[in-house]
């Protein structure tokens, strides 16, 4: 089945900088913005861009993500000639099988999948960004440039630049240098981790890279520098608009809070729907004594207490007399009577016991930070979890 473009979504990352939140779940499966999981954004972008064949490369704790994605029907990605394919590492005859060593190795190990579709182009996506992008426009630019590789770039501030892969362009607009997380960046054009390659070209580089024992088998560290070194035609695709990496606790919290701002990402645009596989629950119920303001809340929630400037995923319960402010509550979390949650991220199905306090408002100190409670935790009655704490397991004793 010949395809013009197949997308490969790298969803195997652990997301180790999200600590407790991703201990039992791959980062792309993380609930986001009340209604979504992070992976909804690249999957919806694919569907909206007319890409109907998506390989999802999983490795780290994939069970929830696999069951969430299912057949891809929620994103209309279950078409007859294409579809959504979960691609875990696998064994071949006579081999012991191995984990994906790096991002490029994940694609290398699935060359067989891509060969089934024999695409002209391969779109490489990552599962940790919040954005809306028309990949078909990026593909058109790639074709116009007769490029071998096109990298989506976004302008960042010079201070931030050292966190990203940074590109330098020559006078013709071609990429002439790419540096992963440079100490002293010489450009503010950051890679968004979204690549389009001409498949024949990439395939050859993947095969060569796999044979190189020195290589980390990573796109940013190995494949792209090797292609640049060989003088391949590499171009930027300039992206403007909302784009956030949600790989850290702070950036994850910030991006969720952006859902409350009207000037961040427009999710009401019917021409570019971000779809999700919604849980099947009743509408949200707001009780007689509830006070809700400046917040987003999702179906299945029951709110009897106070919720301010917060983002609540489905089936969250805020009991009478409980208070939630500047916090992110994941599906099924419960805040019991008299408890107070501020500046915190509360994992799925975690219960904050009666009268407990979790997190606190910024006090200007260096050590302040957002408090995080992982999933399935029980914070006991009256307990106090300080600002910037990270809770992995139900605390046994009073803190």
């Amino acid at each position, binding site marked *: 089945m010949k395809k013009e473009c197949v997308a490969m979504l790298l969803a195997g990352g652990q997301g180790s900088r999200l600590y407790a939140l991703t201990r039992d779940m791959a980062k792309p499966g993380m609930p986001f*913005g*009340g*209604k979504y999981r992070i992976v909804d954004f690249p999957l919806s972008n694919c569907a909206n861009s007319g890409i109907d064949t998506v390989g999802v490369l999983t490795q780290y704790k994939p069970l929830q993500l696999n069951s969430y994605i299912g057949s891809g*029907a*929620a994103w209309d990605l279950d078409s007859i000639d294409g579809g959504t394919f979960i691609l875990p590492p696998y064994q071949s005859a006579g081999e012991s099988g191995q984990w994906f060593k790096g991002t490029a190795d994940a694609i290398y190990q699935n060359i067989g999948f891509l060969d089934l579709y024999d695409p002209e182009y391969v779109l490489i996506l990552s599962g940790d960004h919040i954005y809306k992008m028309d990949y078909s426009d990026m593909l058109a630019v790639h074709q116009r440039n007769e490029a071998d590789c096109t990298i989506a770039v976004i302008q960042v501030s010079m201070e931030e630049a050292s966190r990203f892969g940074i590109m330098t362009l020559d006078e013709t607009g071609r990429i002439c240098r790419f540096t992963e997380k440079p100490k002293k960046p010489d450009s503010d054009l950051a890679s968004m981790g979204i690549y389009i390659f001409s498949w024949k070209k990439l395939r050859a580089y993947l095969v060569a890279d796999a044979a190189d024992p020195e290589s980390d088998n990573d796109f940013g560290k190995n494949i792209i520098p090797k292609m640049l070194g060989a003088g391949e035609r590499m171009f930027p695709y300039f992206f403007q608009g909302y784009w956030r990496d949600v790989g850290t606790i702070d950036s994850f919290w910030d991006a969720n809070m952006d*859902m*409350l701002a009207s000037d961040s990402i427009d*999710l*009401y645009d019917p021409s570019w*729907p*971000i*779809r*999700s596989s*919604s849980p*099947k629950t*009743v*509408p*949200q*119920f*707001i*009780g*007689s*004594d*509830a*006070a*809700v*303001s*400046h*917040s*987003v*809340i*999702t*179906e299945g929630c029951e709110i009897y207490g106070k919720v301010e400037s917060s*983002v*609540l995923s489905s089936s969250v319960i805020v009991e009478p007399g409980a208070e939630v402010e500047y916090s992110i509550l994941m599906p099924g979390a419960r805040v019991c009577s008299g408890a107070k949650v501020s500046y915190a991220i509360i994992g799925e199905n975690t219960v904050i016991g009666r009268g407990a306090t979790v997190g606190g408002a910024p006090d200007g100190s260096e050590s302040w930070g957002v408090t995080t409670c992982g999933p399935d935790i029980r914070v006991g009655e009256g307990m106090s979890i300080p600002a910037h704490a990270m809770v992995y397991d139900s605390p046994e004793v009073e803190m």
Partner: protein
Amino acid sequence: MNNVHGIVYAYHSFPELKTVGAHRTGAALPFCGRYRLIDFALSGMMHAGVRNVGVIMQRGYLSLIEHLAGGRCWNLERHTGGLHLLAPFGLSDASKGVYEGGIEALGAAWSYLNDDIREEYVLLMRGDLCANIDMRALIDAHLQNGADITAVCARTDVPGSRHSFVPGPDGTASEMLSWQNGSGAGHPSLEIYVLRRALLMDMLQWSREHNRLHFHQDALNHAMEQGCRVALFEHSGYAMLVTSETDYFHANLDMLDSAKRRSLFVPERRVLTRARSDVATYYGDHSCVKNSLVADGCRIEGKVENCVIFRGVTIGAGAELRNCVILNDSVIGANARLRCVISDKNVMMSPYMELSGSERLPLVIPKGSRI
């Protein structure tokens, strides 16, 4: 998987539904923020393992067909069986009016019932019933009680019910009563029946020969006179057959009562409905929402009390809504004041609009109005 074939009547649109029933049948009435009434029938059958369901429709079924599509949401999109949309064939009956009664509706699906159904039993019910019935227990009861027909009834008054059964000493119905207005004696029928398909075909055959159109007054009455034993299966949760505008209004507002809501939305028998992509609902800085159900995709800036707000609704700043049911994608302008209003889908209401109905007679704004 079981040996029961579901039949849902979705052709009714009672005149008392007035404006909300003008463009849709009772089964397609939007309910509780995100559902349509037929979701209860289809979800209930799904949980009972019924894998073949025929939906009898006659006219005004556009919104129903859009909602049902292939039946995927209720696990009814199957290679074998699944959902069967039984619209009129438009041959001999094309010029006739609305089906007079259940028998006429079933008669229109005669060849389907006679030739296409392989299951031994059929489960008949109305699509405008608002109740979460444990149909697995119902089917099990029928298989064990040895009766010819098992009927579901309630102990308390069921709005919209027009028939009731008087229980006899052995637990089967000794008598069926029918009334036109208000409730009477006996246990109100929810108009759900489980019986052998062969018996149903006999009842249809007799009705055809005697030119009878009604299920209860004619076919069931006759069958009972002939000694047919009707066992009663009691449903104790919330139930309403939604047949009037006022009942529709109250059924929605009833869902603000948590006991009633929990009786309909039972975790082990989830009510499934067609998915729609909506963002989470945003509550503005000055919004004030009390005792209300709100679906996803809304933006609420105003005051909302005792309301059911469906998906994609916008309520402007300073607006005040009390005891209202606002259907999908309506826009209520800033500083509008609404009391006891049902706003049908896609209504655009200007700022400062003041509208009010009453508990007994809600004011209904037709679909797509610009006011």
